[in-house]
């Protein structure tokens, strides 16, 4: 049974996706039911796995494909971090998407690929070796492309092309790195505290080259500058897709890949000793500042959020690139925290765009009065991004700061401070406009609204994710919080 649970976690959305593809377009009810059922089922499997792991069970599925490489799915605490995030947010995003796509064409296609996308994301998390990781990493590219171009407009297709060139090129680099590694050391599994340090020292120079190839490949999806160009462009996608791309699936796959490579392939101590981490830290630091600066000048709300993502995701890489448990904890926990907060923000942006066609920040004057709940959620997300306690973002930044001090990287403190100031600089004006300015005129209503300020299918997931962001910060000390999980992982990555 233990060998089948990881498969079940992956398959729950894969099978759903395949079935949905073959559903006729008009079977809306069946499709929604399938979507929700698949999401709940996945959540159930993940919960089962989590409970089992606490009791000391191990979950591993291994299949030999060819020539000494295995297809390996393995649940370790690090995997659980992303699996948990993906499966919770998938449920919420699905509900949101059902409401959002009301009246669109080609919904079977959309939800089919949507399910594939989550399958790929969970697969990336559970992948137990570089090859399996690569398989899901590419699968993610393929399943997100149709979502990005879903609107079928010229603009969407152009964005899709950009997205594709970036991610395929990134995938190609990961491929090269993976093959090269396989040539040198055969099939290696991701192992806590790293595995390459046990290899023949004559291979170390090649390991260094492979490290940069892999990080460059993963950096595309993690949107490290200068590989981030696809992300703002991909904003043409429907809001649930943007939410998914930015919060859960794509950028997280990249960031998670970096985590895996540094910790479970090279080992953070080994990578540090080889001098591999400093370039990564510089890239991450630069990205954080650069993304924030670019975000300042965007008037389009989704574009501002996109550049914010560029900046925020690199906190994860930043945490990874410093030696020391506190930095590790900060980076890892941000993986979850950034997901929760950013998905809230995108949900809100989607509500504004769909109900009253507000897409520009300059048009958001007084929007808080029309959408008190939505704007409330947005405020929580934004404050979290800035790092205001007690929202989750504070916890990440706090640990990152402590980690930077502990590892003697004073420059990083500066980066964090600058970033916080910039975050405030581009989020506070939005909050000010929304809450304290008067509306410019009557709202341009586009969706029939009965009781609430917005369709409940859109509003409820948004409020839940806001609440989760708040809870993750408030209850950070509890043993079920993301922080607690990140602590466990960090403690295991630093065994000598």
């Amino acid at each position: 049974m233990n060998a089948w649970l990881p498969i079940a976690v992956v398959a729950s959305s894969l099978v759903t996706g395949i079935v949905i593809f073959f559903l006729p377009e008009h079977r809306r009810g069946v499709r929604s039911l399938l979507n929700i059922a698949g999401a709940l089922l996945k959540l159930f499997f993940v919960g089962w796995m989590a409970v089992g792991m606490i009791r000391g069970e191990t979950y591993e599925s291994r299949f030999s494909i060819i020539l000494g490489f295995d297809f390996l799915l393995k649940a370790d605490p690090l995997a659980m971090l992303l699996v948990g995030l993906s499966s919770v947010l998938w449920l919420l995003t699905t509900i949101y998407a059902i409401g959002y796509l009301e009246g669109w064409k080609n919904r079977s296609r959309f939800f089919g690929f949507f399910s594939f996308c989550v399958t790929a994301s969970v697969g990336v998390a559970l992948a137990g070796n570089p090859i399996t990781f690569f398989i899901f990493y590419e699968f993610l590219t393929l399943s997100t492309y149709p979502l990005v171009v879903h609107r079928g407009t010229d603009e969407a297709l152009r964005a899709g092309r950009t997205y594709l060139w970036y991610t395929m090129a990134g995938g190609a680099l990961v491929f090269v790195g993976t093959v090269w590694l396989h040539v040198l050391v055969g099939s290696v599994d991701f192992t806590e505290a790293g595995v390459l340090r046990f290899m023949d020292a004559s291979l170390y120079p090649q390991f260094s080259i492979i490290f940069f190839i892999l990080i460059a490949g993963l950096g595309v999806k993690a949107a490290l500058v200068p590989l981030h160009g696809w992300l703002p462009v991909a904003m043409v996608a429907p809001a649930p897709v943007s939410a998914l791309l930015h919060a859960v699936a794509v950028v997280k796959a990249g960031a998670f890949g970096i985590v895996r490579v540094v910790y479970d392939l090279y080992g953070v101590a080994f990578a540090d000793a080889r001098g591999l981490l400093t370039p990564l830290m510089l890239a991450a630091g630069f990205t954080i500042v650069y993304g924030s600066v670019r975000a300042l000048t965007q008037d389009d709300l989704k574009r501002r959020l996109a550049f914010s993502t560029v900046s925020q995701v690199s906190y994860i890489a930043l945490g990874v690139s410093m030696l020391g448990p506190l930095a590790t904890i900060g980076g890892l926990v941000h993986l979850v925290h950034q997901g929760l907060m950013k998905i809230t923000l995108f949900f809100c942006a989607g509500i504004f765009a769909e109900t009253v066609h507000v897409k520009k920040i300059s048009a958001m004057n007084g929007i808080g009065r029309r959408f008190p709940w939505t704007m409330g959620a947005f405020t929580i997300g934004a404050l979290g991004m800035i790092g205001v306690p007690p929202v989750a973002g504070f916890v990440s930044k706090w640990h990152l700061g402590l980690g930077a001090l502990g590892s003697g990287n004073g420059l990083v403190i500066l980066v964090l401070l600058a970033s916080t100031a910039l975050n405030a600089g581009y989020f506070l004006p939005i909050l000010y406009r929304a809450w304290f300015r008067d509306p410019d005129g009557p709202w341009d209503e586009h969706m029939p609204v009965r009781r609430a300020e917005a369709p409940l299918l859109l509003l409820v997931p948004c409020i839940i994710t806001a609440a989760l962001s708040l809870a993750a910060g408030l209850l950070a000390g509890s043993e079920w919080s993301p922080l607690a999980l990140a602590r466990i992982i960090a403690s295991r990555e630093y065994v000598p």
Partner: protein
Amino acid sequence: MNAALQGSLLAPFAGALLVLLVPEKLKARITLVVSLVTAGLALGVVREVMRDGVVHERAGGWGAPLGIDLAADGLSAIHLLMTAVVGLLLSLYAFYYFRSYDDGRKARARSLFWPFWLMLWGSMHALFLSGDLFNLYVVLELIGLAAIGLVILTGSREVLGAGMRYLMVAMAGSMSYLLGVVLLYGMYGTLDLGSLNALAEANPLTRAACVVMTVGLLMKTAVFPLHFWLPPAHASATAPVSALLSALVVKGSFYILLRLWFGVFADVVTPAMGWLLGAMGAGAILWGSYQALRQARLKMLIAHSTVAQLGYLMFLFPIVAGAMDAGGAYQLEAAKGTVYHVLSHALAKASLFLSAGLVMTAAGSDRLRDMRGLAERLPLTIFTMALAGVSLMGLPPSGGFIAKWLIAHAVLGSGQWWWIVFVVGGGLLTAGYMFLMLRSAFLERQDGDPDLPGRVSPAMEYAALALALAGVLIGIRAAGLLDIMMIGNPFGFTGGGL
């Protein structure tokens, strides 16, 4: 005496004569039956290879060097399998495709499609089973004439020009090959591949034979820069024919090249020759992809993609000729990967060309800009094209991925790492033109667009889909196929267990 082997040679040819002679209305149906029998017999040979190892048969009962030896080892078996799958689905597709060809010139084309196709199928079997150099020459000519006959079926000025060009190159290629055969006979006094493998040594004559035979076969395989005849021929023929040509015919001459380089010429080839071929492969990938990206017509795009994809087959040669010190392990791996590429490209490309036929039926044209809205009209076909694209791009879990993995592994492992740039870059370029193609289908139709006129038969869509699915499936079930491929040690290496 081996019944399946004899049958697999006789059945398609007998079927060809039968459909040539029977009345029009029976031809299609009889072809379907013959296809089933032929594929069944080919699978019979494969089964025997799997059970007993290499299957031998002495044509005429004399045995080499007097007679002609026939043999099926793992490499033959894989190719027979490929031909059976592609051939069967193609016959099914053609059964419906040619229904609309019912008057005048088109009826004539339909009438002769069936015998030409079965002759071609039989010749492919003869090719994969032959163990004699001169016999292979005759088979090459059979394949060439059957293929050209298929190209010119419709008799339009386009196909006639393309067919003429194809014929010239094919014949020059055969003559070049034949000169090599003659030289080898003059040197060693035998035409039998098995004996020549043992006899051949490095000397000027053998090297000259190697050069002329390789060049001749490369012409027929359409390897850049000898590829110029291929795009017009493959693009102007009818859809089933294009599928056949790209999937099977060009692989035939490559198969002989493989046999020669791993057998007779194993000690003759020099690193310089290998590198030259590798460079041709790199050029093919760049040039073919570049041309594919520029095309406005779907079939031209797919045809140029074939030019590019054939380039991947060439990286085997620098590894074979260049890195003997690795104990053969990487040569073996490269060979496996290359044959896997042959296989997965055959399935994916056949599927693509069949889909292109459906697109042409539905949209009334194969211009990319007329494909707008097809994603809604023919979702299954567009899905098929995407699936085939996954295999061509070499993405997991398709057969193309296994091929790319093996080739990349061999390239890096043998120290000739620079080829990786083309192996990986070629995948990116493939993605570029595949999405160019799909993009057109996903565009919304606009008000000024003409109606999409044609209806397509679901069976044709399923045939194309089945090929694309097979292309993915061989990625998932790779271990079994690779085991079959290695029966009888066709590549002559015993290198490590990679």
